[in-house]
């Protein structure tokens, strides 16, 4: 007697022969643009993932928000972001909900004045679920963090919603202040 999971897996494999994890495109900060932009994103994957190193050009030893939008939507109430975050100056983990907003905040990034040098960067992994589905709002999970000096760091888990049923066809990700700096590199991946 066949095991249902095995049969279902075989069917899915047949319907979607490209199952796996694929590198789609890469963008990089150049000190002159606020964001990296991915357009014409293939609609053939189930989910997207972003793996990034991050930094802005602001010459301060501190952190700031990594921000993201879909389809160039900067509507004032297009997004909700909930975060569980920590930064050293507050020395306590905190919860926060931003609703509504014109951007998502999936992670933090370091500014360019780090006391540990200009080679400092931050990091983030962001997952965009069911991005091509035309019938539901889009959900995003983010995690990441940064240090901007010895013993001074910030990190967060985040969940965001884009209140649109439109498929995600483009992504804008970058700095909230200043520009996306040299050393910020964003990889876009698709998986099934």
């Amino acid at each position, binding site marked *: 007697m066949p095991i249902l999971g095995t049969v279902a897996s075989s069917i899915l494999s047949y319907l979607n022969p490209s199952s*796996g*994890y*694929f*590198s*789609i*495109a*890469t963008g990089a900060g150049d000190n002159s643009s606020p964001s990296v932009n991915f357009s014409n994103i*293939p609609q053939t994957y189930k989910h997207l993932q972003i*793996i*990034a*190193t991050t930094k802005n050009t602001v010459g301060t030893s501190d952190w700031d928000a990594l921000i993201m939008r879909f389809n160039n939507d900067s509507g004032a109430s297009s997004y909700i972001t909930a975060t*569980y*975050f*920590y*930064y*050293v100056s507050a*020395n*306590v*983990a905190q919860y926060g909900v931003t609703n509504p907003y014109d951007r998502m905040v999936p992670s933090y990034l370091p500014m360019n004045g780090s006391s*540990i*040098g200009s*080679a*400092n*960067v*931050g*990091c*983030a*992994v962001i997952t965009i679920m069911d991005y091509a589905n035309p019938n539901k709002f889009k959900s995003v999970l983010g*995690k*990441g*963090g*940064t*240090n901007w*000096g*010895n*013993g*001074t*760091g*910030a*990190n*967060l*888990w985040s969940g965001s919603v884009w209140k649109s049923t439109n498929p995600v066809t483009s992504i804008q990700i970058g700095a909230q202040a200043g520009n996306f700096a040299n*050393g910020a*590199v964003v*990889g*876009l*991946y*698709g*998986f099934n």
Partner: protein
Amino acid sequence: MPTQTYDPIASASFSGYTSGTINLPTTGYTDLVLIINNAGSGGDNGWITLNGDASRNISWAVLGGTSGGSISKSSSGNPSVLYSLVGAQYANPGTFHFFDYRNSGFHKQILAEVSSSYGVQLAQYTYPNTSPITSMEIRTQTYSSMGTGSWSLYGITRA
């Protein structure tokens, strides 16, 4: 043309207190994901050393939560090692993402999620070295046995 990636590179079971030196690929990948699945028991901290390097002051921040509250700490007082997070003992499984580990221009970033006695924890480490990471070692802090467990290493490349 999209490139299929997230490839298994190596895996092994633990024996004794250390994985031994794990030499990393010098071509082909930009990121690494290390999954530690250790079913041993004990009260020792897990460490990961990079490049056999004892001279760097690794800075880290950790965020976690439990039913009784939250934990959030930051420290730079642990040179040369990645703790397997505050309160995490080597019995706890975890994943460690090494960003752009072969980059020769910027400090190396590591993002970890570990199940621990403080609940699930997220930690970000800065390894302040612009040289590529070429090797790592998983070990316990006080040379006690790892117990039964294993590690797996995966490689990711960018288009």
